């Protein structure tokens, strides 16, 4: 899991939400894909799909098939995501990164357990604030990127990626 594009994805999604965009796209790579998919699993995004330079038609998403990957098309592939809004407010209001490429923050299961309960915890010198109401934290574990509650359920620690709050 590389952290190179994490800050870019987070700030871009936050800006797109503030601008009330319905669709937006990020670079297509495996780390972005895993984060966005777990965001979608939590309910912050309506869909995640691979697509070209032109966004998919939201009305025909169920039948949408991304263009086949060829050497000619692979370079312009992007990840298209749908942003969600509820009663005129974005469902995902702020995304803040925790780990940076120069300073990854890893947390053990015991830390995650405390954080998920809303208490401050984390490795020494890198203590994180506990989760607030409706807040989510994403952890990169050996089983992929997942939300902190799922990681606690699976009893796994990992690399803290970002926190997302409504």
């Amino acid at each position, binding site marked *: 899991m590389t952290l190179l594009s994490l800050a870019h994805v987070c700030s871009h999604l936050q800006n797109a939400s503030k601008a009330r965009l319905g669709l937006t796209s990020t670079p297509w790579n495996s780390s972005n894909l895993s984060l966005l998919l777990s965001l979608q699993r*939590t309910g912050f995004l309506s869909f995640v799909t691979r697509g070209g330079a032109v966004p998919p038609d939201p009305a025909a998403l169920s039948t949408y098939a991304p263009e086949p990957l060829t050497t000619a098309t692979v370079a312009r592939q992007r990840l298209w995501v749908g942003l969600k809004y*509820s*009663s005129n407010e974005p*469902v995902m209001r702020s995304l803040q990164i925790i780990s940076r490429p120069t300073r990854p923050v890893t947390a053990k299961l015991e830390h995650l357990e405390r954080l998920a309960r*809303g208490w401050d915890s984390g490795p020494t010198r890198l203590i994180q604030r506990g989760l607030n109401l*409706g807040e989510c934290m994403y952890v990169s574990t050996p089983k992929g990127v997942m939300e902190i509650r799922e990681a606690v359920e699976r009893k796994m620690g990992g690399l803290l990626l970002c926190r997302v709050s409504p």
Partner: protein
Amino acid sequence: MSVARPLKCLLSRRLASATARPATAAPQCFAASFHSSAPLEKRKTRFANVRAKEMGLLDDAAVDEFTKQQFKPYSPEELEILKKHYTPEQMEALEAGEAAIDPKDLTIQGRLRRDPYKLPYLDDFSQLVPSIDREPKKHAPPNPNARWLTEEEAMIDLLMGHSKDLMPLLRWAGIPEEKWATMPEAEKKQIKAELQKFIKEHQEAAAVPEPVQSTKTFMERSMLNDNNAPSNSALAPSLGKKIPGVSGMYKNPIDPEDQGLDDDGVYQELKRRTGMTVRQMMDLSVKILVTRIVHNQTRLGKIRSMWIMAIAGNKNGRLGIGEAKSTEIAVSTIKAKLLAIRNMQPIRRYEDRTIHGDVEAKVGATIVRLNARPPGKDDCPHHITSMYLPTRLAGFGLRVPARLFEMFRACGIHDIAGHMPRSRNPMNSVKATFQALTNQKDPNEIAVGRGKKLVDVRNVYYGGNVL
């Protein structure tokens, strides 16, 4: 203050008393003395009083002498003059009155005023002194049963009133000359007087411009059936109680539903807006949190005003803030309080005791951070509680600054922590707290937005008995 001073005072007092009264010893007085100077002796009058008895003024002879001088009976000459003015019956009454009062009684019991403020007459009622005497009521009191004229009656009244002034002249003109000669003297006199009066009135009326006259005739007529009788009062008679077309149109401003709580009508507008009763509004906890004196600089000087911020809450999840400014403190106070009641909004509470999660709000340089807190633990051992006492929960409490404390108490939040890391401006702290409380996230809204089902585990485990 030095120690030497009381001593100096004491010494000077002693010395002063010694020099002032060398012959007599100062009387021993234990009462506190508030002066350092020596007390004066009791003052004596320089002239002895002489009593009236010692002067011989109360002797019978002296009293008789005074009576004779002061209250002389009428002399025969004076009686002659009086007889010219009064009838014999009046003279009899005068004499009887004189005989009824003993002049000696007047001397002993009466009092002749000689001060500069005495009345300028004794019994002259032919003249009225406006500063002393009441103005006589020349006219009869208004008819209490007077009613409004109908349209026809008003028309007849107008025509008759107009022709009334002409009556004496018509009468005068209708009398032939031979009849006038045979007329008794009294009747002639009366007719002449009427005519003189008529001419005089019409001369006066001629001096008034025509439009004014006609206006007076039309406008200054009584619309009641009192025959335009003159009144003792300069005020027009008041309107009746039940005027057709008006009665029932206006409501009494004092609502009997208020049970006399709001006779000044202060809460009436608020009652209409909020739908609360006056009793409910009075039961709210309303408190002034911030007062400031502000100045408006004009070219005439500074104008001071009082700026007041008040809060109102029902101790059950509703809170409002109101701010008002006025040069009068009382006005701004009541305005701020009423606005606070008017602005009351529902505050989201978790378990009716704390807030949902942690919230933060910023107004100006003031940041208020509020943190939800758990309920208190049972501070009694369980076996004692269950046997002898009702469940007593201490609670976390309100660990917040004073103004925030008042706000949470008013809206019914019992467990909370809050702090202001930066500025603690009184006005901004109250505003920011109100913002933080009203901007809490709705858990239901979050769940709906994500398409997930949200479960409060405190209500799930152990059948919800987690307290």
